[in-house]
Structures are given as structure tokens and as C-alpha cells.
């Protein structure tokens, strides 16, 4: 890949990072986790940063550890390490399964969970090499139209990272930091349905990591469809979690999806359908059809909204079977 020249900072500590970010001009840098999404976008000339700031040498961002009942996963942890972590696979199977589905072994060795959480939205009309023959400027490129939703007033680019769906279903909280200090927010409040800015984070802030509650104990699963099984983004990804109970009922179920709109989304309709119901009882097509009635996916990545809904319904049926003790 022939990239345009840029300055490259590789701080060894958070203190060093804040210092570099503080001195950088506004909009002058991009954070680099594993670079598996930033570098292809730079190669396509979608991004041309003056500087990159690499996070992978900051030891504080690479821990996976218990914090009381919670588990903290540092943002620069490689997806492969997340997936292989004994804590994660024992307590949060949905997260281990989602991390295991990202891209390919090579991408999981390089890609980080922070990069996955902050993965920019994607669109067939946008994620392509810029230059002669590329699609005319749309909103995401600073233009005045959307090619996906004709006459649309905003960008509908699709959020398609795998792990955020699992983390939403596990009630995770995102830890954000900057020179001024740290803050923590429910992951659900971190995202917004906006193809251009899908994350609520300041220009000089970073995601430090993610905190997942270990109590109440939850059983969980993540499933997805993609055109190819490997090296491909999900067309639809669904995570389900439920509090462990003796009764075999869905107690406080959480259902979250990726590949549905410009953010990972809790599916309230399916959660209502599941609540209190016996896990062993199958979900019929009519039932999920009803529960997903409110959902309005747009035509993306070549599949129709109706088919996309169908995929989520089938994933729900299969995920239920995975939760049966």
C-alpha cells in the first residue's frame, strides 16, 4: 500500500499520549489501534491524516483483568487475546464468539477491541478507492446527497463491527479518557444512529477500554451471517444474553444487533418477546416477524430490507437454541 507521508507517534504511556494529543492541531491526527481499518481507508484515499498516534505500545491499554465483580478489557487488547482470554470465554461467551468472527486470524492478531468498538460505518458507495470513476460525493464525503436513500437527508452508512453487539447484550460500559480525566458511560449511550459520527467521543479523548459486569451471571451467544464465512463483514449479527436462572426462563433478556443501522442496536421488540418465556420454547416466524415490525433497515450491501429482517429473525431462532442449558 502506498500511503501519503504522515508523522507517526508511538507513545509508551497514557501520560505520553495525552501530551502528544494536547500538542496536536485540531483534526490533525487519527488514533491507530491495529490499523486494520484505518490503513485500508488511507490506501483508498478516504483518510489523509497529518499524523497517526499508535496505541499498541501503551501497556495500560492491553490488560484484561478483574475489577471487583467486573472485568476490564483494555482498548489495545488484540481481538485474538480477547477471544482466548479464560475470563472472557468463561464469563462472556457472546464476546468470545463475536471476537472470533472478526475478519480472519491475521486480522484478529492485529485488530484491537478498541478499534472494533470505534470502527467507522461502512457503505458500498463510500468504501472504495477514490479517484476517477469513484461515486460522486455523498454526505460522508462532504457532498450533498445519499446514494443509498435517494432524497435522504443524512448518511445511513452501516455499522458492522461484531463485538459491540455482544457488548451491548452484556450491559457493558465504555471507559473514556483524555488529559482532563476519565469518564464512564453505558455502551448504549456511546453510539448514535448517524453514519458520519456514530460515536459520542471528543476529539482529544480515547476509549480506554470496556467494563463488563460479571454479576448477575449471564448466559450469552453471538451469531452472524456474512456473504463469505471468513474475511468478511457481517450482513447481520445478533447477540443474546439472559440472566442465569433455575427456572429456565429468559430473565432480563438483552438482544442486540449489528449491521442494522449506523449504530449497534438493542432490539426492544425481541427483548419483550423473550422476557419471562421458557428458553426451551421455540420462536416462530410469526412471533419474530411481529417483534421486528418496528424495524426499518435501509437497502445496504446489496440485500433488501425484508431479507435483512429475515436474517435477524433466523439468527434469533438459532440463538435461542444456543441458550438452552
Amino acid at each position, binding site marked *: 500500500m502506498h500511503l501519503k507521508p504522515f508523522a*507517526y507517534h508511538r507513545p509508551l504511556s497514557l501520560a505520553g499520549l495525552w501530551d502528544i494529543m494536547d500538542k496536536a492541531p485540531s483534526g490533525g491526527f487519527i488514533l491507530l489501534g491495529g490499523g486494520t481499518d484505518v490503513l485500508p481507508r488511507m490506501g483508498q484515499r478516504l483518510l489523509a491524516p497529518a499524523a497517526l498516534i499508535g496505541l499498541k505500545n501503551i501497556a495500560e491499554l492491553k490488560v484484561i483483568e478483574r475489577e471487583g465483580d467486573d472485568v476490564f478489557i483494555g482498548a489495545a487488547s488484540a481481538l485474538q487475546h480477547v477471544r482466548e482470554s479464560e475470563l472472557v470465554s468463561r464469563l462472556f461467551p457472546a464476546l468470545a464468539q463475536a471476537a472470533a468472527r472478526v475478519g480472519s486470524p491475521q486480522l484478529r492478531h492485529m485488530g484491537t477491541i478498541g478499534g472494533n468498538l470505534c470502527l467507522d460505518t461502512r457503505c458500498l458507495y463510500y468504501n472504495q478507492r477514490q479517484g476517477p470513476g469513484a461515486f460522486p460525493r455523498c454526505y460522508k464525503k462532504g457532498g450533498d446527497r445519499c446514494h443509498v436513500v435517494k432524497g435522504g437527508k443524512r448518511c445511513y452508512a452501516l455499522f458492522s463491527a461484531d463485538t459491540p453487539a455482544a457488548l451491548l447484550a452484556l450491559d457493558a460500559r465504555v471507559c473514556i479518557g483524555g488529559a482532563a480525566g476519565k469518564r464512564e458511560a453505558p455502551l448504549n449511550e456511546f453510539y448514535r444512529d448517524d453514519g458520519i459520527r456514530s460515536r459520542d467521543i471528543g476529539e482529544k479523548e480515547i476509549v480506554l477500554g470496556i467494563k463488563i459486569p460479571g454479576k448477575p451471571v449471564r448466559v450469552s451467544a453471538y451469531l452472524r451471517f456474512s456473504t463469505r464465512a471468513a474475511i468478511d463483514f457481517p450482513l447481520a449479527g445478533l447477540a443474546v444474553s439472559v440472566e442465569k436462572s433455575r427456572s429456565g426462563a429468559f430473565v432480563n433478556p438483552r438482544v442486540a444487533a449489528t449491521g442494522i443501522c449506523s449504530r449497534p442496536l438493542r432490539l426492544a421488540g425481541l427483548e419483550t418477546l423473550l422476557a419471562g418465556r421458557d428458553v426451551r420454547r421455540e420462536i416462530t416466524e410469526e412471533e419474530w416477524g411481529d417483534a421486528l415490525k418496528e424495524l426499518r433497515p435501509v437497502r445496504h450491501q446489496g440485500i433488501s430490507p425484508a431479507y435483512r429482517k429475515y436474517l435477524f429473525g433466523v439468527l434469533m431462532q438459532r440463538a435461542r437454541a444456543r441458550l438452552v442449558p
Partner: protein
Amino acid sequence: MEQPIKLQINGRSYMLNVGPQVTLLHVLRDYLGLTGTKEGCDGGECGACTVLCDGESVLSCLMLALDAQGKNILTIEGLANNGELDRIQEAFVEEGAIQCGFCTPGMVLSTKALLDRNPHPTFEEIREGISGNLCRCTGYVKVFGAVARLAGTGKPFSDK
């Protein structure tokens, strides 16, 4: 701005001057003449540029050369010893797991990463281990055959 870096590749040290925008793939092929590592899609989608970094498979097209400092990089050139093929290369040849050969260096290195950690993988583990390497000739059957032979798993697809 160019800066001096030191890389450890196939057990040898190399000193060179590169800018931050230069990828490891570019260094391997164009600075050092190690053209066994292939440039395929140049965007993370095909696995042809796979090398091992401290034993893990990574894509050299998405790795900045600066980030390869202090790591042990293994490319396909580092496998054969005194002209003798490594046992993985041997198995690929014997099973006919190579056609045009473009994906082969990456495929062999992904196999090495897998077998070094897990000498006796199941079929599922083999499938996953090489799932990051696209091959447009073999249909993968013979590649599976070669890896399965090394893993002692027995012949795959024997039910056909």
C-alpha cells in the same frame, strides 16, 4: 521523514532508512528483495502478504515497517534450511497443494502459525487456521490435505 530502523527478519538483522508511511510488505519486497511475500489485494482481504510476527500470522500490507521493530519477523524465505524444504513446504509439494503458487507463501505461514501452537488441530481448527488466505486455484481441498497430513488428522473429505 525517513528514520533509521533495525528489523529482525528470518534471524538476520537489517538496518535501513524508511518513512512512517512505508509498510512492512513494501520493505520486504522493494527494499530487501524478499519477494516471496506476495502483494495481492493490498488491503487486508486476501492473505497473500502473510508473515509471522513473533510467531503470530499478520498481514504485512497493513503493518507499518516502524511497528515491526523489535519483533521477530519470519517470511517464506526463512523456512527452508540449507536448501532443504521445511516439512510444511514438503507436505504442500507432496499433496499437490500448490497450483499457481501465489497464495502459497501465505498459506504455508498460516499453517506454521497454526501448527506451532497446536500441533494436532481438528478439521474445524484447520479450516479456521487457513481461513485468512484466499486461493483461487486449488479449491482448498489439497491444501486441507497437506495440513491434515501434518496434523495427523487423516484424510479430509474421505467420505466422498
